[in-house]
């Protein structure tokens, strides 16, 4: 990509642009970009709207960003709130606020603190999260390491190592009767599975550890199954 001769797009205050190719795009204030935008660095510090697709090397949303197309970026950081209508493809994807995506997510390394909503499938090599999440499709990840806050939901989870833990904090313990910290899912399939606070219909794996507060319909395992006393497994089968 020849980027040296490209100009920068800076919106300070209130403004709009028709998009195009830039070196850096910075929105401080309220800015609207009315078509596709392609750049090296994208930064949105106030309220930004992109009525098209975003292609960038580094993208950062520190305020509020709404994207009506898809985002393709090497790294994507959401530190405020991002809403994306299309798909996200980002090698590095960090969320420390809230991100809701109406499409699917493809990433290599995902770290989420806060809240994540994906309507379709979510794919990554590593998915580390301390958050509340909702995934409408399949969470397909090599290594899932999640500490859940609140109610989480995923249609299916598949991968190699899957660890679901409950995040224990004073707050959570005080308000335990009010907030249910549970992960709900139809199906979990993986080689090594460790679960806590999980309600699943079917769990299939080689080594399965069911920790406290789980409610599992059926466990199918090939090697070992460990069960905590405070959990319910309706049926288990060794294959």
């Amino acid at each position: 990509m020849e980027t040296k001769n490209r100009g920068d797009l800076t919106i300070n205050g209130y403004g709009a642009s028709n998009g195009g190719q830039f070196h850096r795009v910075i929105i401080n204030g309220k800015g609207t970009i009315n078509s596709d935008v392609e750049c090296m660095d994208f930064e949105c510090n106030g309220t930004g709207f992109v009525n098209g697709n975003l292609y960038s090397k580094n993208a950062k949303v520190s305020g509020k960003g709404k994207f009506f197309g898809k985002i393709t970026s090497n790294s994507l950081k959401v530190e405020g709130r991002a809403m994306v209508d299309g798909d996200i493809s980002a090698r590095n994807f960090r969320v420390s606020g809230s991100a809701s995506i109406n499409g699917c997510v493809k990433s290599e390394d995902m770290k989420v603190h806060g809240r994540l909503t994906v309507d379709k499938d979510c794919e990554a090599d590593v998915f580390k999260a301390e958050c509340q999440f909702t995934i409408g499709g399949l969470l397909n990840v090599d290594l899932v390491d999640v500490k859940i806050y609140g109610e989480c939901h995923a249609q299916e989870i598949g991968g190699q190592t899957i660890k679901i833990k409950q995040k224990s904090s004073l707050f959570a313990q005080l308000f335990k009767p009010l907030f249910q910290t549970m992960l709900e899912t139809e199906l979990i399939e993986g080689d090594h599975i460790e679960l806590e606070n999980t309600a699943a219909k079917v769990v299939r794996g080689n080594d399965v550890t069911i920790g406290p507060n789980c409610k599992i319909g059926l466990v199918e395992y090939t090697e070992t199954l460990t069960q905590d006393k405070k959990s319910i497994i309706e049926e288990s089968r060794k294959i």
Partner: protein
Amino acid sequence: MSEELISKKELLELMGISYGQLYRWKRKDLIPEEWFVRKSAFTGQETFFPKEKIIERINKIQTMKENLSLDELANMFSPNVTELSLGQDELIKRNIVSEQVLTFYLENEKGGPQFDFSRILEIFILEKLLQSGDINLDEGKMLLQVLKESGSLIKQKDCELIIVRKLGVSSCLLLVNAEAVHFDKGTRMVSRLSLLNCIEEIKAKLW
């Protein structure tokens, strides 16, 4: 679809692979989304696969993953035809086409000496059918005409090429996403080729 299906569990056991591998391959698009067939079983939903295709694919992945990275493999399996162009000598050297067929092709087509992927595919199919003795040179011309006219279709979809003969008269058909074909009794199907398989074979030779 009357294909035989295999459940995910049976597949893992049969091929000796793990959930992690299967999900990783799916993620890298080595196994197409359409092959994941969801069906309700008595234990809730289960995933099934078309047995023949998935076993063949996994065998291929397992034999080739030592030499190629997963991304390279994905490139190879994708039906989107890659950008490339080869010279005549290269084609012969890589065993894609024999010299006689190449001359015949060039005589009929009158194209340049550089081959892009769709021309490589045409010449590869021609070579395959001529060498197997299924068709003669005149039929080869007919085949080329069909392939040329519907070239844009071939790259996207699951196409099959069929050559039939009745009372010594042959004709050539291109099926796009078809499930089955039936002919009357007097018609003999001379040859049936899946173009996706051909593309994979070529790609295997190019690597």
